[in-house]
C-alpha cells in the first residue's frame, strides 16, 4: 500500500486557506491541532503535529512566497484507524532540488538565520513525509501520522 498502512477511508476533513503572513504560522498550527484533538492524541503527539505544521507553513512564507504574499492551502483528513493526513500546498516559487532541500541544515536563505531543519523536523515528527514541487508552480507537502491515543472518532 502506498501510504504504509494508513487507511484511505476519510472520517472527517477540514480545509483552511490563509495568506502567507507570518502571524498565520501560529493560527495554522492551532487550528490543525484543534481539529486533530478529536482523535484524543497524547500531548506529545499533538506537539509533534503542531511543530510539523508550523515548519510546512513557515516554508511557504519564507521560501515559496519570499517576495510576495500568496495563499497557503491546508487540508487535514482524519483517517480510519486514528490516522491523520495533513497537506500544505502553495503556488509559490517551488523547489529546484527536493532531495537536497530535505537534507538537514540545507537552506537557501543564509541571511535570515534559518536553521535548515524544517524538513528534518517534519520527517522526524510525522510518520510519512512526501514533498512534491515544481519550480515556478509551487510545492505540496503531505504528512501522515497515526496517534497511539485511545480515541474513538465517530
Amino acid at each position, binding site marked *: 500500500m502506498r501510504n504504509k498502512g494508513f487507511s484511505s477511508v476519510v472520517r472527517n476533513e477540514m480545509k483552511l486557506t490563509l495568506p502567507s503572513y507570518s502571524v498565520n504560522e*501560529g493560527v495554522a498550527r492551532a487550528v490543525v491541532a484543534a481539529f486533530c484533538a478529536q482523535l484524543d492524541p497524547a500531548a506529545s503527539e499533538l506537539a509533534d503535529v503542531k511543530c510539523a505544521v508550523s515548519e510546512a507553513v513557515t516554508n511557504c512564507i519564507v521560501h515559496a512566497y519570499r517576495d510576495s504574499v500568496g495563499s497557503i492551502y491546508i487540508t487535514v483528513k482524519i483517517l480510519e484507524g486514528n490516522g491523520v493526513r495533513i497537506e500544505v500546498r502553495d503556488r509559490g516559487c517551488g523547489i529546484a532540488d527536493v532531495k537536497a532541500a530535505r537534507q538537514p541544515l540545507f537552506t537557501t536563505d543564509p541571511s535570515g538565520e534559518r536553521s535548515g531543519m524544517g524538513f528534518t523536523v517534519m520527517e522526524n515528527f510525522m510518520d510519512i513525509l512526501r514533498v512534491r514541487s515544481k519550480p515556478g508552480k509551487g510545492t505540496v507537502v503531505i504528512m501522515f501520522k497515526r496517534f497511539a491515543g485511545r480515541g474513538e472518532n465517530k
Partner: protein
Amino acid sequence: MMNSNCGFEHEYNEGELYVRLRGEIDHHSAAMLRGDIDTLIYEKRPQRLLLDLSGVGFMDSSGLGLIMGRYSLVREFGGSMAILDPAEPIMKILNLAGIKRIIAIEKTKGAKKK
C-alpha cells in the same frame, strides 16, 4: 495577537545575562525576539548568556535559528552560553538538532526562575 504570543524578561549580574523566554517561538516571534535580545547583548557584552526556556510552550526550527544566532553573537564577544530548563517537547527538537553538542543544556528545576 500580532506580537503578543511571546516575550522575555531579563536580568544582568556581573557579566551574566539571564534571559527568560516565554510563549511560542516560531519564525514570526523569533524575528522580534532576535532584535530585542541582540540589543541587550550588544549593550551588556555578557561573559555568559543564560537562556531560560522553561516558559516556552512551543518552539519550531526557527527557535533553533534563534538560539544558534545568539550563541554566535555571544561568542563574538568572547562569552559562553547555556540553555536552561526546556520542557519535554522543546527538548525533543533541541535533541533532533544536536544542540547539546554545542551549547550546554542545564536543568535548574526552577532555582534560577524569578
